[in-house]
């Protein structure tokens, strides 16, 4: 079992009566990146702020390392928790230059100049010491914010949708760079996002949140391929659902019979993700293409089956399909849920 760096238990938090966290529990393993993924308004930012000590919950406990930092009769101020935070906006101090921003949390450290230089080289901005925050690009400012958060060598670093303000190409590059830096420094990190792709790509573990609590935690492929329920399945990516009847390791549906886990029996719900659907051009095929979206690296094709059922398929960028083409549909795999 890996060591737990942050332990949250049954946290409840309301804002003016509206519940934001309803029994939020989470273990963050030390030295790894965990994504906290959920739709907007599910309470993920609140959870981060409770861990940082920027919000006071009504109930529940937070432990960082061995120490209880939030709990009944106990509250450690944010400045004494040693957790770094990165916000959606870089939130650099505009009246201080880059060096002073990064050194802000280590102002007592006699080696701070050296540490700043080290961090600047880590984020690829060596020589930027005298720059002013307003002279930095969005990506540079975010990297300085990361260096500032890392400077005091915090127990953990909390990232609150730090790339939301960046445009797509930069966002992907930053994601990769930040991930590399976090892995290199072996930091414990909690990364909040509402973007499924970002969560899956960024982290070793994904915790899916819904209505103020964590509903599923696991490795990215685990939560994607084996979601706990249809809500998680739908939230993590495009999926098609249909009713089925399970028994003896098989599930019977309107689209055919598929293998499943032997413990499932009786009526089930079956999920088909677009990439589980294979298409082939065929003059006598059972399906007809009714919609077609081309994304460059792949394409999403909606097919209408003979029985009127519609199904989406994700294929490589060729062969090309056009609306009206007749296709043969093969379903490689399905996931069944107990209803």
């Amino acid at each position, binding site marked *: 079992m890996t060591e737990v760096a942050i332990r949250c238990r049954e946290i*409840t938090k309301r804002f003016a009566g509206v519940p934001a966290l309803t029994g939020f529990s989470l273990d963050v393993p030390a030295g790894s990146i965990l994504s906290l993924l959920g739709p907007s308004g599910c309470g993920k930012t609140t959870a981060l702020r409770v861990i*940082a*000590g*920027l919000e*006071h*919950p*009504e*109930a529940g406990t937070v432990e960082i390392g061995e120490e209880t930092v939030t709990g*009944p*009769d*106990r*509250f450690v*101020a*944010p*400045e*004494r*928790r*040693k*957790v*770094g*935070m990165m*916000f959606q*906006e870089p*939130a650099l*101090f*505009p*009246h201080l230059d880059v060096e002073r921003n990064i050194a*802000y*949390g280590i102002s007592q450290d006699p080696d701070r100049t050296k540490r700043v230089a080290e961090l600047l080289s880590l984020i690829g901005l060596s020589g930027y010491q005298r720059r002013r925050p307003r002279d930095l690009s969005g990506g540079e400012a975010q990297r300085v*914010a990361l260096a*500032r*958060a890392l*400077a*005091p060598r*915090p127990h953990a670093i*909390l990232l609150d949708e730090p790339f939301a303000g960046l445009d797509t190409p930069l966002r992907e590059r930053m994601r990769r760079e930040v991930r590399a830096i976090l892995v290199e420094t072996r930091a414990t990190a909690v990364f909040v996002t509402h973007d499924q792709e970002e969560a899956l790509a960024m982290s070793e573990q994904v915790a899916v949140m819904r209505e103020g609590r964590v509903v599923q935690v696991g490795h990215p492929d685990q939560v994607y391929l084996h979601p706990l329920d249809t809500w998680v399945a739908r939230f993590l990516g495009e999926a098609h659902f249909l009713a089925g009847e399970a028994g003896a390791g098989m599930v019977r549906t309107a689209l055919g019979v598929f293998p499943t886990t032997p413990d499932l029996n009786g009526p089930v719900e079956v999920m088909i993700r677009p990439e589980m659907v294979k298409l082939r051009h065929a003059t006598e095929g059972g399906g007809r293409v009714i919609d077609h979206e081309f994304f460059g690296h792949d394409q999403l094709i909606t097919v209408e089956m003979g029985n009127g059922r519609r199904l989406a398929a994700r294929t490589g960028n060729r062969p090309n399909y056009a609306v009206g083409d007749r296709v043969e549909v093969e379903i490689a795999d399905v996931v069944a849920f107990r209803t």
Partner: protein
Amino acid sequence: MTQSASIARGFHRPRATHWYLWAGALAIVGPLLIPLLYLLLRTLGDGSAAWNVLSSGRPLRLVANTLGLAAAVTLTSVTLGVAVAWLTMGTDLRHRRLWGGVLALPLVVPSYVTASAYLAAAGPGGVFANWLGVSLPSPSGFAGAWLVVSIATYPLVQLAASAAIGGLDRGREEAARLLGASSARVFRTVTLPQLRPAITSGALLAALYAISDFGAVSLMRYDTFTRAVYANYQGRVDRTAAVVLAVVGLLGMALIFIWAEVRARGKAEAATGTHRPLTRNQLTPRQRSWVPVGLGGLAVVALLAPILVLISQFGEGSLTGLSAAVRGSLGLAAAAAVLASLGAIPIAVLVARHRSRASLGLERTTYAIHSLPHLTVGLAMVHFSANFLPLLYQSFGLLALTCAAIFLPLAIAPARAALEMIDPRLEEASRTLGKRPLVTLARVTVPMMRAGLASGGLLVFLAALKELPVTLLLRPTEFETLPVRIWSASNDLFYAKAAAPALLLVGLAAIPALLLTVRSLDD
């Protein structure tokens, strides 16, 4: 219900964390609030004394005089202020910005300076008689007070109305036009209703000014509450009459207008969405030729004539003792500015960062004190310090603190605006980087509020520089300021002696005003 209550009890609440903010805020508001409450309770508690003063019959005349002046001044300043605002903001008048700026300038000239200048100019031996050969009637009494207070107050209406006209969105007018309304009907049914809250608010401010003004009405020898309060205070052992008049008459009347003003302001709606300014109305050729004449006339009466009179008298008065008054004025204004800026920090932080009923109440209290007639506030301080704090009685420290507390909202507003521009994440980042709240305040919040604090300090400096009644009541013996010197000389009919300090005061006041204008043009 019981469960959540028990949880709340069990948890550490961060209640005590802003105690230092409250301590700082109350250090500057408290010294003013306590004397005011004391004065209020003493007066209202002693019914027979109040009755003796009020039943003498004289207060009825004071009410009539004060209200009469307020009505005349309000009517005049609304007419002038709205006209100037419309011409400079709503039409294509040439040099309209310049006109708007020049005609708002009387705002920086204190009413007692204008009063002194007109008194020096009129009459058989006056400056106008020397220049024109004809002596103008002396503008004392109601007419004089009306003229001078109107000059001081129409810019208030002008500025309020100008802001409202500048904030109008073309969309509503265009919608009304497309629905078939004539331009006159559009103005009456769409434009004017949008301007009404601003004009009402400006009008009530003008009325409040007329009620509270002491300098001009006393020099014009027109009997309003302020003059009666001062006369009953000055050189009397028994100050009951002064106190009763200040509290029951002056304060009571002012509170009615403050209440109305707050209500009117609440109705002004904030502009939303993208803003497209109003299309400017075109002046006809005839209007184009006579409008500048009218505006020029106003500029002469309100600004040019008084200043010229002061300049012509400059050499005639003696300059002895002037440097002491300059030093006194600058010292007092600087001390008040520094104290008010310091006091504004905790209040702005409380309101912008820890908004609660209590913090908003505190901020409103400072605004309420600011609106009260300064004479009443000064009297409360004198009364309280004479009875309970003999060491502070008539000390410079108490005078500076009183000025700072009276003008505190001038410092709070820009400080708060600056703070609201600062992302609270910056302070949170500082906390997560290991800095305590007080360290965060000193190293992140205050440095970022610098510009707002400087603007606020400048505004307080400007206001304290011109302050008359509080200084008259609270100053240490021998301590002089320019306003005191101008007022005393004019009150003793030595108008020539008032000219030099008056010009100096206007000059000194123009510097911070200019700095503020430049600063706002930069933005």
